[in-house]
C-alpha cells in the first residue's frame, strides 16, 4: 500500500534521525503543549505562533521532510477549515470587538477570521511536528520510547512490556494488513464487485465483502502469531534485554538544552511579562 507513505519512517541520516527517541518524544510533546497556550491579545498570539512556525520550519529543513508530504497531510483539513470559518463567522465568541464589515445585518468581525487562522496555524504546526517525529523515528524506536516513559507504572504492576509489545506488533502489521486489503479487493473485484461505483446499498455490500474476510484473516493471523511466539518461548513477563541500547550523545545534550532553555524562557515569559490567563488549553 503505497498510499500509507506519508508519515511513515523514512530512512535518512539527519540530526533528528540520530536523536534518542525518548528525547524526541519529550520534545514533541512539550512543544505541542506550549503551542496550545492562549495569549491575551491577537498580537501576542500571532507572534507566538510565528515563533513556533519558525521552529517547525527549521526542523523541517533539518529533517529534509518534503513540503509536498506536509501539504498532502494538511489538504484534507481544508474541509474542516471552511466549516470552522463559517462557525466562527456566524457565532462569534463573546468579547469580539473588531468589526470588519457587515453583510446586510450580519456583522463580520476580524476576530472570527483571526480565530480561524489561529486554529489553522496550530494544526499545521502540530502536524509538522508529528510528521518530523514519525519520519525520523522507526516504530520500534517509538515503542521503546513509550515503554521507557511507562516504566514507573511497573510499580503498580501495570504490564508495561506487554503493552509495548502489543503496540509494536500493531504498528508492524499496518503494512501487512494494507497488502491484505489490496489482495482481498482484487479477489472481490474479479468476482464482479465494484468498489468505486454504485449506490449506498451496493457500496456497503462491497465493503462487507472486504471487511469480513479482512477481520477473519486478521484474527487467524494473530492467533498464528501468538502460537508461533509461544512456540519459540515467548514469555510476556520475562525480563527483556535489548538489541539496540539507547545511548545519550552530544546531539541529545544539545537538543535537551535547547528544549529546556525554550521551556524556561516560556515559563519566565508567562510569569513576568504576561498577566495570568484563565483559559489555558482552549482552541
Amino acid at each position: 500500500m503505497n498510499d500509507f507513505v506519508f508519515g511513515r519512517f523514512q530512512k535518512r541520516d539527519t540530526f533528528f534521525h540520530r536523536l534518542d527517541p525518548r528525547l524526541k518524544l519529550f520534545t514533541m510533546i512539550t512543544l505541542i503543549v506550549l503551542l496550545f497556550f492562549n495569549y491575551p491579545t491577537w498580537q501576542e498570539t500571532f507572534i507566538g505562533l510565528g515563533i513556533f512556525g519558525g521552529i517547525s520550519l527549521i526542523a523541517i529543513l533539518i529533517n529534509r521532510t518534503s513540503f509536498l508530504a506536509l501539504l498532502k497531510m494538511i489538504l484534507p483539513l481544508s474541509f474542516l477549515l471552511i466549516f470552522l470559518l463559517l462557525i466562527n463567522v456566524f457565532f462569534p465568541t463573546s468579547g469580539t470587538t473588531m468589526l470588519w464589515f457587515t453583510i446586510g445585518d450580519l456583522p463580520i468581525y476580524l476576530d472570527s477570521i483571526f480565530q480561524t487562522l489561529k486554529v489553522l496555524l496550530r494544526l499545521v504546526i502540530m502536524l509538522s511536528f508529528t510528521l518530523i517525529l514519525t519520519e525520523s523515528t522507526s516504530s520500534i524506536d517509538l515503542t521503546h520510547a513509550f515503554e521507557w516513559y511507562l516504566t514507573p507504572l511497573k510499580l503498580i504492576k501495570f504490564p508495561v512490556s506487554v503493552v509495548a509489545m502489543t503496540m509494536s506488533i500493531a504498528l508492524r502489521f499496518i503494512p501487512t494488513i494494507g497488502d491484505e486489503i489490496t489482495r482481498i479487493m482484487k479477489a472481490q473485484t474479479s468476482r464482479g464487485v465494484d468498489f468505486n461505483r454504485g449506490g449506498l446499498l451496493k457500496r456497503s455490500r462491497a465493503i462487507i465483502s472486504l471487511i469480513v474476510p479482512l477481520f477473519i484473516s486478521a484474527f487467524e493471523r494473530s492467533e498464528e502469531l501468538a502460537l508461533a511466539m509461544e512456540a519459540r518461548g515467548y514469555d510476556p513477563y520475562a525480563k527483556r534485554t535489548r538489541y539496540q541500547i539507547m545511548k545519550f550523545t552530544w546531539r541529545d545534550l544539545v537538543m535537551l538544552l535547547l528544549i529546556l532553555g525554550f521551556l524556561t524562557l516560556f515559563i519566565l515569559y508567562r510569569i513576568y511579562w504576561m498577566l495570568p490567563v484563565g483559559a489555558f488549553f482552549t482552541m
Partner: protein
Amino acid sequence: MGIALDHVFFTYGKRKQAFLALDDLSLTIPIGVTTALIGATGSGKTTLIQLLNGLFKPSSGTVEVLDYIFTKKAKYKKLSLLRRKVGLLFQFSENQLFEDSIIKDVMFGPLNFKYKKDVARKMAEDALKIVGLDESYYDRSPFTLSGGEKRRVALAGVLAIEPEIIILDEPTSSLDLEGQKMIRELLSTFKNLGKTVIVVTHDYKLVLASCDEVIKLQHGKLAFQCRKDKFFTLLDEQELPDYYKLKRLLTKKEINLPYQELSSNEIITVMRKAKHE
C-alpha cells in the same frame, strides 16, 4: 480473438522503489487448451494473470484478451463484462469467502453480474456440483470448512459465473493429496468441455498430468513456451516426479505410459501387456 501480449512491460511502484515485474514480454496463449504458467517466485506469473483480468493495465505494450485490448491509456467503462468472461481464482482464495452460507457465497459472483436470484442459485448449484460439494453443504457456514473444502467453495465461486477463460493461481498449494487429485480431475473436466484454462503452478505433477501447453517465465521475460511432451524432455531427471522418471525410463524401452498418472497395479498391467507383445 484470443489472449496475446505484445511487448508488455509492467512496473510496480515509482522511481527509486520501482520493480520491473514484466520485461518486454510477448506471447500468445492458445484458446481451448490448458496452459501451465511456471517459473520461480517473483518471475511475474501473478502479475501476468492480473493483467488478463483487467486488474492492472500494462506500463507499456498491449495486452489482448478476447475482445478487450489494454494499453497504458485504454479506458474501459465496463470491465465487469471481461471479468465475467475471465474467471480468476486467487492464491489462498479461501480468504475471499465472507457470506454466512456456502450457497450465498457462490451466488455472490452471479448476483454481481446482474443475474436474477433463481438463475444465480441454479448457477451456484451447478458450480458446487462440479467441485463435488452436495446439497448438505449449501447452508453451512464457509468458515466451518477445512482448508481444502474452502478452496473448493472459492473455486465454485469462480465457476459459477461460467467464464470462458479460467485462470487458477497455484490451485494445489497447501492442499492435501485428496484436494490435489480433485484439482487434477477438475482440470480434465475443463479440458473435456473445451475451456481455456491457465494454471499458475510449481507442481510439475499437475503440469504433466493435466496441461497441454507450458509457458515458463524468468525475471519477467519468456524463458520458453512449448507443448507438454517437449517440456517433459526439457526437465532434468531430479526435477521429475517418480512416476515420470519411470515413464522416461520405459520410453527408452519403447513402453509408453500415459501422462495421466497410473496406479502401481495399472503400471504392472501395461508392462505385462508390453512384454506379451
